[in-house]
């Protein structure tokens, strides 16, 4: 199989999904209606609720949902061969992710821009809402722990990426200063920032840096992880304009450039896919493809995190209802293309099958390092850049994705800790809350040993938690569709599928963690398992109740929104 053919078929399938299936969803299922004013107009406040150009909003949405996950997941999952991963990413994007992300936007827009958490309280019951808090806490915890390990692995595997990674912080800091203190114009700053970032990549490529194997008796990986958490803790407490805002912005630009470089190289180089379509020669200890494939690739196929972004911020800025198709569905398309790029890089970027098998010696061994190595080879062949420079570009890209997600994750976790403090009546100060957020993530990372292996061990557990959140969103969509007497199957089929594979995967992992004697992960697994079964029971109860619902949900929501708007005006 040629990688270009794979890319063309994959992109074709995903785009067909956008042009055909999303059109069907928009008109027949969600019945998007531009005559209904969106919350961005009815509740416009210049802060949260702001009607936004759909291309700009798509940019925000896409860069918020695209982290390291659509790279890490596929890069691990191709161990079962490229075909299963390819099918799950393409079909998953078309029938699962697009439907889910666009649906979350629609559900939130019809409910005054409320988040999935609030909607679960409304449609599934107050237990649904409590469950949401538990799941979001665990999800953030796992993101922080897993991404720290991913970055540490990359820094050790690609020492040339050390300077651009830490240098990017300096660039972001200077960008912030240039915009807010020196009042440079944004286009100028953007160009200078991106050029500086790529200059750093060149510098890093000629000056690789590595830590000694042990520092103060700790392995280098542990030291990187600790340094990363110290950074994330500090970054999450600085004013956002200083570091996080310019960093997210430069990273957003870099995301588009890197995707262009990768697909451009595939187009020019057309390397052969060396990995088998279906790998029957999997290394010992690799878990079964069903159900683990479907939770290993979470983002890139379906991801509950997208629902949080859709209903949290994007829905409040939607200019008109029909924009939901472009912002929500095409946002999922962007993520699917990133995952597809990761599959191509990790299966076509090796010269021989033996080379590929050498990298994929054990489950979790491949991962992002395979993406960096494989992607590097493809760029070398396509654009003629030296292999090490190409690998540095790929590694820096992956690290920047993971790091921006991680520092935002620590920041969000701090808010969650403070909120939990409020619930139990204790005021938690900012510093203490940050310390707690970092400490629990560190405990999880080092829970399975001083090498920080706990972080990646929980990757499939991250997948299950994320799928559980997606299931929650799909359940809300199904209930809303049943109430409107519309065909609920586009939401129900993915819901049943995701529910079954998630529960199945949790049971399998339960056995694995028990055998390993890994009590920390075992407890987490049990919590998630209980939560999943709970939400399924509640959701089906709510669906049964929705079938006998005779009111007009849309009219009720509209009346409620009008009442609230009048109330706010008073």
């Amino acid at each position, binding site marked *: 199989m040629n990688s270009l053919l794979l890319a063309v078929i994959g992109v074709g399938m995903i785009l067909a999904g956008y042009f055909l299936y999303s059109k069907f969803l928009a008109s027949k299922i969600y019945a998007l209606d531009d005559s209904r004013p969106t919350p961005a107009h009815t509740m416009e406040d210049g802060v949260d609720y702001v009607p936004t150009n759909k291309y700009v909003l798509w*940019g925000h949405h896409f860069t918020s949902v695209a982290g390291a996950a659509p790279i890490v997941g596929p890069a691990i999952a191709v161990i079962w061969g490229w075909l299963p991963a390819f099918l799950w990413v393409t079909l998953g994007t078309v029938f699962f992710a697009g439907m889910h992300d666009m649906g979350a936007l629609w559900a939130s827009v019809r409910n005054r821009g409320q988040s999935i958490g609030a909607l679960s309280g409304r449609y599934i019951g107050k237990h649904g809402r409590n469950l949401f808090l538990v799941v979001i806490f665990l999800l953030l915890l796992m993101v922080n722990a897993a991404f720290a390990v991913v970055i540490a692995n990359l820094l050790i595997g690609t020492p040339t990426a050390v300077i651009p990674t830490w240098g990017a912080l300096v660039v972001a800091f200077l960008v912030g200063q240039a*915009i807010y203190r020196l*009042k440079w*114009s944004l*286009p100028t700053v953007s160009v200078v920032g991106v050029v500086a970032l790529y200059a750093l990549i060149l510098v890093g490529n000629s000056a690789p840096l590595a830590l000694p194997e042990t520092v103060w008796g700790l392995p280098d990986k542990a030291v990187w992880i600790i340094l990363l958490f110290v950074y994330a803790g500090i970054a999450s407490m600085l004013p*956002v304009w200083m570091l996080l805002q310019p960093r997210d*912005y430069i990273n957003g630009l870099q995301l588009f450039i890197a995707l262009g470089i990768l697909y451009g190289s595939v187009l020019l180089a057309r390397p052969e896919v060396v990995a088998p379509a279906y790998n029957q020669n999997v290394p010992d200890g690799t878990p079964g493809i069903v159900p683990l494939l479907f939770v290993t690739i979470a983002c890139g196929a379906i991801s509950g995190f997208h629902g949080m972004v859709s209903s949290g911020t994007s829905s409040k800025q939607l200019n008109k209802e029909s924009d939901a198709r472009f912002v929500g569905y095409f946002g999922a398309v962007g993520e699917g293309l990133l995952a597809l790029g990761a599959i191509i890089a990790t299966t076509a970027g090796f010269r021989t099958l033996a080379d590929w098998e050498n990298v994929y010696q054990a489950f979790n061994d491949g991962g992002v390092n395979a993406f960096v190595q494989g992607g590097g080879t493809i760029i070398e062949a396509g654009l003629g850049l030296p292999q090490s420079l190409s690998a540095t570009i790929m590694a820096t890209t992956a690290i920047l994705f993971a790091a921006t997600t991680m520092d935002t994750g620590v920041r969000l976790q701090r808010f969650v800790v403070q909120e939990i403090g409020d619930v139990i009546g204790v005021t938690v100060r900012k510093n203490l809350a940050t310390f707690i957020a970092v400490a629990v993530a560190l405990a999880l990372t080092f829970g399975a040993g001083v090498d920080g292996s706990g972080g990646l061990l929980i990757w499939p557990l991250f997948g299950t938690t994320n799928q559980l959140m997606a299931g929650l969103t799909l359940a809300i969509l199904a209930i809303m569709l049943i109430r409107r007497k519309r065909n609920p199957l586009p939401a129900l089929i993915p819901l049943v599928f995701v529910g079954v594979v998630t529960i199945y995967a949790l049971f399998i992992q339960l056995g694995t963690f028990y055998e390993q004697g890994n009590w920390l992960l075992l407890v987490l697994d049990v919590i998630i398992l209980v939560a999943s079964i709970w939400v399924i029971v509640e959701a089906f109860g709510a669906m049964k109740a929705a079938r006998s619902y005779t009111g007009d949900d849309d009219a009720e929501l509209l009346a409620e929104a009008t009442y609230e708007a009048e109330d706010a005006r008073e």
Partner: protein
Amino acid sequence: MSDPTPEPRGRLSGLAAGLRDFYSGPYRRTFARAQQDEDDLFMVIVMAEALGVPNPASYYTVELLPAVYEQFHAWHRRMGLDRSPLDTFSCC
């Protein structure tokens, strides 16, 4: 802190405006909240004397009273006071 970048001119103005939205959008809320915090602090300093807190700088701050009068109502509502706490400030 409001967006400090100047108004764009010329052919690329649409693109520049889009970039500016892309830059500031995700953090709009954070900045609005920071601005509100600063305004609240300013309000407390200016209103200190009126609220019964001795203020050595009241000779200067009294001149600023008209500047904060407009926001006074929003401020006391935000502080959890349904009615104006001052007899002299009857905004509601």
